[in-house]
């Protein structure tokens, strides 16, 4: 009858041992009391004797493996009996020892890596601030790099942030003189620019200065689109309904197919007309705005576009935007229709060639067959870099866009 041999407890507080070396190989004869294997504990390497005699039939543990005391490590029996039932290998908690030696902990016994907290270090310069100051800075969205620290070693402490915030200095603790009654004047509030604000400022200031912008406005007949949207949304569950902007994004993308020169970037003295059409959508986030991008907008369905924009916008607002969400746009759009803006002019996102600013869709009096009627109209204004394109092309693009917006079934095919 074959016998299973387990990792022996070789010391009072031994919990696990390393099978360093099989002295008897599989198939070798072994007498009771003969050395079967060398086992290493954290105190020493010990020659372990086999409690049974016979033939070594199975090694259940490989050389170098660490297993807990009591784990089956070998089977000794007669040369030909069936030992398949005893062929039980230890589970994955036993991890092979590397060359470094010692006892590695199993993956399950290691704690999760410490959570990475967002770093309040800007660039290479380490900002010294007390934990309290950092907390206040986080809560009030204050940029610590703009604050002078007066603590030891230039450490920023709470009072530094408080002073940066208020124009009123701290009253001296020792003064006992009576303050005359003064009528309080309204105080200025000093707000330090966040990193996002600074970045937006830099890029768009460059854009406005470098790119010779020109602008065209086109008033779109939105009746068919509004009706189609109503119909389609009637069939969609709550939370998945399409917005007017979803339609506009698709329409823009399809129109850009016909005008590759507006789906382009200026690169020195060459114009790169992009193969992909990735339309960007401006999203308001705390402290500024971000442009999230729908890749291959022309090839996606309205529902897909809608879902993608919703999830990317949510990520952006929550500060969890992925790099992929905001890189690679070939044409941008911005929609202020929800704020009742009739029309506006946007600044091109460099290095793109153009940006489309969309106003609100509203019901207005219109001329129809010589009569006054009520119709849905929406103004969109395109800003174009005159180094890349000119008025006629831009105007024709806006006409092409009309095709898709005013005959919205085209968006479905």
């Amino acid at each position, binding site marked *: 009858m074959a016998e299973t041999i387990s990792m022996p407890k070789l010391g009072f507080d031994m919990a696990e041992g390393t099978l360093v070396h099989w002295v008897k190989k599989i198939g070798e004869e072994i007498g009771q009391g003969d050395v079967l294997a060398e086992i290493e504990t954290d105190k020493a390497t010990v020659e372990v004797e086999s409690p049974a005699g016979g033939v070594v039939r199975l090694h259940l543990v490989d050389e170098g493996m660490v297993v807990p005391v009591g784990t089956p490590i070998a089977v000794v029996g007669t040369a030909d009996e069936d030992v398949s039932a005893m062929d039980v290998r230890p589970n994955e908690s036993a991890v092979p020892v590397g060359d470094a030696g010692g006892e590695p902990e199993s993956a399950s016994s290691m704690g999760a890596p410490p959570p990475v907290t967002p770093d309040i270090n800007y660039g290479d310069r380490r900002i010294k601030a*007390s*934990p*309290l*100051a*950092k*907390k206040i800075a986080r809560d009030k969205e204050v940029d610590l790099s703009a604050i002078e620290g007066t*603590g*030891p070693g230039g450490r920023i*402490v*709470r009072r530094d942030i408080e002073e940066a915030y208020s124009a009123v200095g701290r009253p001296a*603790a*020792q003064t006992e003189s009576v303050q005359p009654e003064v009528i309080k004047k309204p105080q200025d509030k000093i707000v330090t620019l966040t990193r996002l604000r600074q970045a937006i400022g830099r890029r768009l200031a460059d854009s406005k200065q470098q790119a010779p912008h020109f602008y065209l406005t086109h008033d779109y007949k939105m009746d068919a689109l509004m009706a189609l949207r109503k119909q389609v949304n009637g069939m969609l569950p709550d939370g998945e309904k399409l917005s007017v902007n979803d339609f506009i994004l698709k329409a823009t993308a399809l129109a850009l197919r016909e005008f590759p020169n507006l789906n382009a970037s200026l690169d020195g003295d060459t114009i790169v007309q992009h193969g992909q059409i990735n339309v960007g959508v401006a999203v308001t986030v705390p402290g500024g705005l971000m442009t999230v991008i729908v890749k291959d907008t022309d090839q996606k369905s309205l529902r897909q576009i809608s879902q993608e924009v919703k999830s990317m916008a949510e990520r952006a607002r929550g500060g969890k935007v992925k790099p992929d969400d905001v890189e690679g746009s070939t044409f941008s759009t911005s929609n202020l229709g929800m704020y009742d803006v009739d029309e506006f002019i946007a600044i091109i996102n460099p290095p793109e060639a153009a940006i489309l600013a969309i106003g609100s869709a509203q019901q207005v009096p219109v001329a129809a067959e010589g009569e006054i009627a009520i119709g849905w109209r929406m103004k969109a204004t395109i800003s174009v870099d005159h180094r890349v394109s000119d008025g006629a092309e831009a105007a024709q693009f806006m006409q092409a866009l009309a095709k898709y917006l005013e005959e919205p079934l085209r968006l479905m095919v």
Partner: protein
Amino acid sequence: MSRITMREAISQALWEEMERDPSVFIMGEEVGVWGGTYAVTKGFYDHFGPERVKDTPIAENAIIGGAIGAALVGQRPVAELMTINFAFSAMDYIVNQAPKLRYMFGGQFRVPLVIRAVGGGGRQLGATHSQTPDVVFAHFPGLTVVSPGTPEDAKGLLKSAIRSDDPVMFIEHATMYQVRGEVPDGDYLLPIGKSKVQRPGNDVTIVSYSKGLELSTKAADALAKQGIEVELVDLRTLRPLDMEPVITSFKKTNRAVVVEEGWKSYGVGAEVVSRIYEDAFDYVDAPILRVAQKEVPLPYNRTLEQAALPQVEDIVAAVKEVLR
């Protein structure tokens, strides 16, 4: 209320508890006929007799071991260690027997023992008679460690310790017996394991106990004259350690100093500061400093002894540093 000394407060607590409960008795070196080396038990022997005020041999392990035995069979011994430095002769009894018997016997036995021990330096008694090894005892679960800093706390806490069914190490300070304070008359108890704000303030928190409390109070007075309002939190009990008033205070002031007479390394401050960082990290406006004894065996020479012990100026300097 009466204005009495720490000695009188402790003496009153012992007397009242012995009158109240016949199972309470005192044992220790010179506690009976002599009346106690610090005169705490003066008059007890004549009133309560040798059965209840027992003079022992100079054998701390026998004192504590015997007290544990008495406690196990239902008495309430108050054993005295003439100085806490002698506790090391009875270490196994104090940390291995008394606090663990209840657990290891599965609750079949309780050990309602109080060990009164006198600690601290400043009387030129030499290195082996001047230590403040409080943390050594506070390290062990199962052992309650109390160390009052005012007469009112001393009386109320000693009564609670005597009435507790578990072993309590009650640490007094050799140079504080004549400190006076307001103490309620008659019977009253104070809760073991509760820290107390002894003095409110808004600018900085000082955490201390026993002698450190006395020094910190003087430091707070000096700082108040310079416009700095110190909030003084008295731990009163080292185990179990009540951090709640400490954290509440720290969240208000954001800056703290811990004062102890023991050595800084591995001391009370090390524990208190760790817990503040753990529980109030976002409220830390400056590193928390510890004022403690210099890392030397305490000298016999008077000047050197004072140089090694923490002083009021050290506390004032630490507070100023922490407010920088």
